């Protein structure tokens, strides 16, 4: 049939289970860490050839479930039946050899190898002990073309965007004869076109008989893709619904056990005086950006990934050198040469990537929260231990960061809680201008609502906010003014709801 099909035939041993019959059954599957039940005994059946969505707040047990199914961790009790047979799934190798594979939110591939080399990694074509580079590149290109991905197989992975890397990871799993493919928040970093490509691929894999498990925070994706949806809450499997027999209100109430009337709280506050104004600001990745933020308003920056929004934020924050333009802070012309200068003025930046820019992951939560203010916590030579502890504990309780103590490492926290740590860091320091770059990526619905309420609180206290988001409904509903970025330039500006979603999107894509 197609290149994809040909190659997957090399690996697939055929499907022993007819479409619509159970392929993977969990019976009382349970995982305990010490006394804590991360997954309470769960009974979930996955049917061959279905797209089965799994939704739940952060910490609901989704990650635990994925790790159990892919053999990363071992279950405490319960049984797993694969094609009717009891299996252990004790190691990743066992899971993969049975045809169970996962595509993770954060791409786990070798950045310094080519796309083709990554796709064949661990399964290289060989002749007489040597790799057949050319053949692999050609074969990979056929697969990529066939999937409709406009990607060169010979390119280095590090030259691709995160979204493109995600597609490579998916293509890689697709050509390995995977029968059961788990997607863990795959669209978190994808542009809309990339998401559309991914969805086409997922449907296509489904048509070829692959069972798909799709984990997402985005309700509209679940309803667009899935056949059935299972809800997890606090480690409990709350229920499974046919997609036609449920709606997002029901799913959200199952997920969070409390009804959120409305996630978006747009409260129009009186707009105060000017906080910051940029005139013709240029730097690496952005050009001639003029915009302003006043007290009490949210200024949204929308655009596709790589449109220059984050680069602009880093430039304003003093992380990147500016090549032209002026910055006026509360009416006075300023130069912001480094991050400390920006902080001293009153700018806070919650950066795009929590893992790479936001957190010291292998350090305790408390240290992360206090990091910007250790100079203030210092009296004499040493840090005032009592005030250090007080501030960390205050932020943890104010922001409801779900941790037993401030000494837990940041890496142990879920996405939403990690975002709260980043925010807590800047609430400790205080600021007039808060820049939030993709604050709700990988964050559950409940935490999202908390973050939005926090925005309102900051505005009431007289701060201004720059909100950078690739999630249009969010930035559209929250922003008093919305600026659209495309290829490093500010291409359009709108007041609240003065343009339609379609207009904004069209401007961002530039068709």
């Amino acid at each position, binding site marked *: 049939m197609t290149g994809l099909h040909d190659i997957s035939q090399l690996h697939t041993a055929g499907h022993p289970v007819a479409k619509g019959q159970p392929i993977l059954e969990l019976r009382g599957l349970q995982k305990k*860490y*010490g006394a*804590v*039940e*991360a997954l309470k005994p769960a009974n979930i059946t996955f049917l061959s050839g279905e797209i089965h969505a799994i939704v739940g707040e*952060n*910490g609901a*047990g989704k*990650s*635990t479930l994925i790790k159990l199914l892919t053999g990363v961790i071992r279950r405490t009790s319960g049984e797993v039946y694969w094609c009717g047979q009891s299996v252990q799934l004790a190691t990743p190798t066992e899971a993969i050899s049975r045809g169970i594979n996962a595509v993770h939110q954060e791409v786990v591939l070798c950045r310094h190898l080519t796309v083709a080399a990554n796709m064949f990694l661990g399964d290289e074509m060989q002749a007489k002990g040597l790799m057949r580079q050319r053949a692999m590149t050609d074969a990979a290109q056929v697969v990529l073309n066939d999937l409709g991905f406009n990607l060169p197989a010979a390119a280095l992975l590090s030259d691709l965007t995160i979204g493109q890397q995600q597609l490579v990871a998916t293509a890689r799993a697709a050509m390995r004869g995977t029968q059961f493919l788990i997607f863990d928040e795959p669209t978190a970093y994808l542009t809309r076109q990339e998401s559309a490509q991914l969805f086409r691929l997922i449907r296509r894999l489904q048509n070829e008989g692959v069972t798909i498990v799709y984990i997402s925070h985005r309700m509209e994706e679940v309803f667009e893709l899935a056949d059935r949806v299972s809800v997890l809450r*606090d*480690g409990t499997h709350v229920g499974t619904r046919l997609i036609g027999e449920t709606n997002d209100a029901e799913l959200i109430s199952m997920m969070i*056990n409390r009804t959120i009337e409305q996630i978006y709280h747009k409260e129009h506050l009186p707009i105060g005086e000017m906080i910051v104004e940029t005139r013709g600001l240029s730097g690496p990745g952005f050009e001639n950006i003029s915009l302003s933020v006043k007290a009490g308003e949210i200024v949204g920056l929308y655009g596709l990934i790589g449109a220059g929004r984050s680069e602009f934020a880093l430039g304003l*924050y003093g*992380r990147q050198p500016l090549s032209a333009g002026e910055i006026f802070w509360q009416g006075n012309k300023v130069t912001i040469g480094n*991050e*400390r200068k920006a*902080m001293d003025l009153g700018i806070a*930046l919650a*950066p795009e990537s929590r893992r*790479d*820019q*936001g*957190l*010291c*992951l*292998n*350090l*305790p939560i408390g*240290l992360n929260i*206090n*990091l*910007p203010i*250790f*100079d203030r*916590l*210092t009296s004499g*030579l*040493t*840090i005032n*231990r009592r005030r250090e502890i007080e501030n960390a504990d205050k932020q943890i309780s104010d922001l409801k960061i*779900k*941790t*037993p*103590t401030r*000494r*837990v*490492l940041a890496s*142990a*926290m*879920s996405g939403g*809680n990690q975002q709260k740590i980043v925010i807590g*860091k800047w609430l400790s*320091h205080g600021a007039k201008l808060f820049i939030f770059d993709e604050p709700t990526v990988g964050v559950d619905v409940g935490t999202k609502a908390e973050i939005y309420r926090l925005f309102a609180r900051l505005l009431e206290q007289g701060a201004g906010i720059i909100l950078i988001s690739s999630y249009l409904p969010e930035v559209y509903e929250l922003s008093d003014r919305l600026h659209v970025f495309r290829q490093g330039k500010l291409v359009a500006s709108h007041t609240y709801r003065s343009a339609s979603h379609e207009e904004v999107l069209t401007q961002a894509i530039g068709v």
Partner: protein
Amino acid sequence: MSVETTTESAPVPKKGMNILFGLILLGLLLLLWLLLGIFTNSFWTPNNISNLLRQGAMTAILAVGQTFVIITAGIDLSVGAVVGFSSVTIAWLLQAGVPLWPAMALTLLVGVAIGAFHAFGIVRMGLPAFIITLATLTSLRGIGLLITNGSTISISNDGFTDFSRADFLGVPSLFWMVLVVAVPAYIFLHLSRWGRYLFAVGSNSEAARLSGVNVNRTIYLAYILSSTCAAFVGLLLASRIGIGNATQAEGWELQAIASSVIGGTSLFGAVGSVHGPLIGAFILATINNGANLLNVNSFWQRIITGALIIIIVYVDQLRRRGSR
């Protein structure tokens, strides 16, 4: 709603584990002393204990300096060479008639300069720490040999050389120097904001930078402290052997790194303490001392040190994995 389940991997708070690890190390050291006391007649003699404390002291001070660098996810391979070079510097200065105290101060300043050069190479020239410190390792030995013309400079200042043989309150003065270094080092690393910055830079320098930490200054600080500790050890060594010789302290950088790692410092950065490397240094010194007393071939000491590094780091890995 149970709150704890939401941290998906249900981690155990670390503080208790760290104290436990420290106690295990201390227990290992005491066990070694006990065993050597049983199996040799000469271990628990005042002479031998003094000797052990003197030898361990120098490694311990190097290990503390090294730990600062390793916490920033760097490495300082030059410390052994700096020790040798400093012994030449002080001997040369004294020979040239510079009074003792200014000569010592100048030697320490040379240490500061070497550390600053390392940081300059890392921060401004973008060189890996491994490379720049490897380069100074060989260059400093070369410069030292050039100055001394390949031989040694003897030190005739009795006040200086007597110091290493002196005792204070019955304990060798060299051992007191460990405390002179360790107490401020402890305050610096564990109680001051600079210590927190070292950890933050070692964990994620970009996050630290965006949180207002002056990353470059922190790196300068770490390498300067390491080289200055090494120059200080150079003074102690010169006092002990009474000569300046650029080839002294061969391989001490590995002793320092080993002590630090045995003491729980992670070579990936962001994990470490002051007390761990101190105990690690004395564990290594005890093994060497004990091997001598037991007439074990000295080549075996190197093999044992290597095996110990593997075992302790492996146990530490298990501990980290287990608590996840």
